[in-house]
């Protein structure tokens, strides 16, 4: 009798031991994969308390014609190109994320970290930066305030005429 069962096992029918081992290992594997996935989720914050992407930059008359003004907390330049033409230029270098400086005496935007240089339109003049500085969406709200939205990148020709 015993011999018969053993032979059956050899023929390909699963043995009792193998069956229970499989169930046990399967359960442990599922638990292990689940806990790795949950830990991965835990490490990724669902809410980040970071400065909002949309902000009020000020009134158009605060910016003289031909000026480049850094909104330091937001890392955005408010540029008034000529009388009444505005655009918002990112102040974050496209190379490795340092904040750039406006050099009024040279008329350029320069990054202190690795020497990238940009003109007031955001075009790269020198250095390792791979892309021009992006422009962000800028609108005039009901109270006459310039509102910049950093989550919306607009084309390089976009200006706001006030």
């Amino acid at each position: 009798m015993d011999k018969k069962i053993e032979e059956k096992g050899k023929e390909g029918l699963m043995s009792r031991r193998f069956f229970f081992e499989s169930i046990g290992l399967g359960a442990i594997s599922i638990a292990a994969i689940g806990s790795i996935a949950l830990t991965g989720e835990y490490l990724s914050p669902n809410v980040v308390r970071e400065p909002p992407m949309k902000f009020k930059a000020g009134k158009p008359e605060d910016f003289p014609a031909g000026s480049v003004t850094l909104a330091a907390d937001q890392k955005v330049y408010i540029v008034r190109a000529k009388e009444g033409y505005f655009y918002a230029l990112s102040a974050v270098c496209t190379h490795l994320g340092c904040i750039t400086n406006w050099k009024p005496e040279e008329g350029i935007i320069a990054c202190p970290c690795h020497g990238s240089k940009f003109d007031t339109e955001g075009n790269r003049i020198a250095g390792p930066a791979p892309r021009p500085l992006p422009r962000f969406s800028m609108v005039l709200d009901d109270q006459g305030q310039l509102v910049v939205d950093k989550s919306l990148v607009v084309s390089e020709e976009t200006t706001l005429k006030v």
Partner: protein
Amino acid sequence: MNRLTEQLVRSRVWRSIFRHGLPLSNRARAEAVFYNFFLHVHPTKVRRRSIKFTYTWGLGGLSAGLFIILTVTGALLMLYYRPSIHQAYWDMKDLQFVVSSGQFLRNMHRWAAHAMVAIVFLHMLRVFYTGSYRPPKEFNWVIGVVLLVMTILLSYTGYLLPWDQLSFWGISVGTNMVRAVPFGTGDRISYLLLGGNIVGENALVRFYVLHCFVIPVAAMVFMGIHFWRVRKDGGV
């Protein structure tokens, strides 16, 4: 005095700790090594050539010594340092100007950290030039490379903790470099490292935990394996 020593050595407490007699015979000397936690990793025999100082320059031992200095000074610095963006910089300044021996401990930690990177690198060069990466030690070379990477990561994660301009932009640049990892995973890794999109509170706490717990513990495990393999392969 001799009688007192003898009494002490024969006492039950002593013999429960040291389970062999005074190492007077060769057998007791061997037992003294085998039964001691700190000595048991020693090889059974060492080649005369490999204990020559100018063969190893003691660079591995120096690295381990620096790691111990860094652990001790680091634990002491942790008593006054709080990883919060409002406090970190001022706690660091307090350590420099207010806390007794604070400046000394901080500088010791800093110089030992710089020295460890240099010494670990020199150790790697030595192992390369003496051909000590050859079989059967190839895998120990791999563990050594892991330890070198951990040394550099410890250095880098510690860089953010003073929370000054150098720290801030150093970590900004580094985590932006991580974004260059291909297959769309770069941004994800950077987000997980920083705990957000910018170098802020979450990033500081994460780097603190990595610097003070995760990487040191991992490094200790790898160091244990590294030393054990060195000695089983006949090194010092």
